[in-house]
């Protein structure tokens, strides 16, 4: 589940030859959807008509209210009579929180390694290179599942695993950017003024490459959402009584014949979220044009 299309084997970015201009209406739609999704997750306590684990066994697997289901259940109910709409809102909160945390872990780890490799070069670059080779040698899904089998399931491990997804993209990107920054006059000038490298990197180089990092984060984020929901779908990610969009599809799958809305509602939300982030990320890259081309 990896967007690796954008780099060649030795880590140079290949240009997607034309930067396409997306219709502004599509972008406006994507941004509004993301705003609504984030707000819904953040304000789930207020917006949700019910708690995400409130059961009502009298109204199990009832269709959405607009299809003749019980009043006030906009997306219908699931196998325990829980309100699917409320569960989607809370799932959105947990899924987004975990995906954002995982992304920050990965971006932080990758950025750190990128800086180390660019500063010390030599051995650090070899270590980075070996780690990248190693990561590329095991399909990430298998790697994540093996870690879960060896260490048992926990939220902490789960977030770390999501963070490990894609760290190498940040490491390569940052290494390249820092190496080219070191050639520029301002770094040389700061060094001659006697500033400590850590200060130069954190106060001067990092802000300069921040835009490119941010673009990379938006490009990686859909993959993280899909990975989180995929593992939760398999029952190996977020565990009940907590809920996530993938977990909802996983349990809704058993009721496809009788209650399709239990799987379709969270599935559509995942799809629209991943799609919106992708569109915004591409648009962002085109606008900033911050990615270094070869």
């Amino acid at each position, binding site marked *: *589940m*990896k*967007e690796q*299309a954008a780099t*060649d*084997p*030795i*880590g140079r970015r*290949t*240009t*997607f*030859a*034309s930067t*396409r201009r997306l219709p502004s209406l599509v972008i406006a739609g994507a941004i509004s959807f993301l705003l609504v999704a984030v707000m819904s997750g953040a304000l789930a306590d207020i917006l949700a008509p019910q708690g995400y684990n409130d059961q009502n066994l009298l109204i199990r697997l009832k269709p959405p209210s607009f299809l003749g289901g019980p009043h006030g259940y906009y997306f219908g109910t699931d196998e325990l009579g829980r309100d699917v709409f409320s569960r989607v809102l809370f799932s959105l909160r947990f899924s987004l929180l975990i995906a954002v945390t995982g992304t920050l872990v990965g971006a932080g780890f990758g950025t750190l390694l990128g800086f180390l490799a660019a500063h010390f*070069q030599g051995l650090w*670059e*070899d270590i980075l*290179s*070996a780690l990248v*080779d*190693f990561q*590329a*040698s*095991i*399909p990430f*899904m*298998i*790697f994540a*599942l*093996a870690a*879960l*089998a*060896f*260490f*048992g399931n926990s939220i902490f491990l789960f977030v770390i695993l999501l963070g490990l997804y894609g760290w190498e993209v940040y490491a*390569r990107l940052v290494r390249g950017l820092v190496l080219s920054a070191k050639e520029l006059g301002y770094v040389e000038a700061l060094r001659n003024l006697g500033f400590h490298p850590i200060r130069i990197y954190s106060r001067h180089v990092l802000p300069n490459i921040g835009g490119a990092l941010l673009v990379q984060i938006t490009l990686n984020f*859909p993959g993280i959402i*899909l990975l989180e*929901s*995929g593992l939760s*779908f*398999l*029952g*190996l990610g977020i565990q009940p009584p907590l809920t996530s969009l*993938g977990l909802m*599809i*996983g349990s809704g*799958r058993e009721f*496809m*014949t009788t209650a*399709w809305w239990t*799987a*379709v509602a969270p*599935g559509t939300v*995942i*799809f629209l979220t*991943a*799609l919106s982030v*992708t569109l915004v990320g*591409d648009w962002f890259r085109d606008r900033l044009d911050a990615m270094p081309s070869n």
Partner: protein
Amino acid sequence: MSARFLIVRTLRALLTLILVVTFVFLMLRLAGDPIKMLLPEDTPASVVEQYRARWGMDAPIYVQYIRYVASVLHGDFGMSFRDGRPALQAVTERIPATLTLGFAGLAVALLVGLPAGIAAAVMRNSIVDRSVISFAVVGHSVPTFFFGILLIMLFSMSLRWLPSSGSATWAHLVMPALTIGLWNAATLARFTRASMLDVLSQAYMKTVLANGLPSSWRILRYALPNAAIPIVTMLGLIVGQLLSGAVIVETVFAWPGIGRLTVTAVAGREVAVVQTIVFLSALAMVMANLLVDLIYGWLDPRIGSKTGGMSR
């Protein structure tokens, strides 16, 4: 392609495999005492010691490591608790099913992704191009498990054309192959388009154009071979994506392959089976990437002269 290039690449592949073995060994040792994981909680200490000695766990860590590597080289990955057979056997019997699905998925990805990408690049900014881009973006945002479920709802439940789960007939293969194939086709189409656009903008293509050769000939004879180089690299990555994708798709469609075995083994914490799957998939990936490197070196002789790697 120089012999040095071949040797360096093969050595790198071997080194990566050694890294994988070492990594799994370390993970297993970090994960806790394997004897305690195997035996019930109230086992007397003397029995625990007996097992420890029998399994060589009382030896120093480097001896354990050497023994571990030796057993892996002998294909001894331990026993599957569930059915009491060697883990390797439990995994290898699932390989044909996964290979069938993998090749079918790859075929779908190539048959859809390549022509779509080429058409989009040749007819740049046309309605075809826009459709292909939309397909690539949308296709990459649909979770495979959700797409699979939608297919089941449409073709198994509403239309009743195809069976929803199992692997008894070729009809069972259609939906899993489409799910895994179309997802990869989206990536491939996007990549092929970019690669073709790069080539089409080169000066020699303008010469071909100026010579007035027919357009289909122009593309097949002059553009495609050069565009193929990055696309072949992409295929190496797709092998990994097929393996990753198989985990979810085989679960959705109850396809009896390695992916589904992985999920049940992880849920039951069958460490022996899981480590076997890790080694075999790493082996498959390393072989695929080695093959890609060799094809790559053959397609573009310039590559054989440098060894690649990030620090260079």
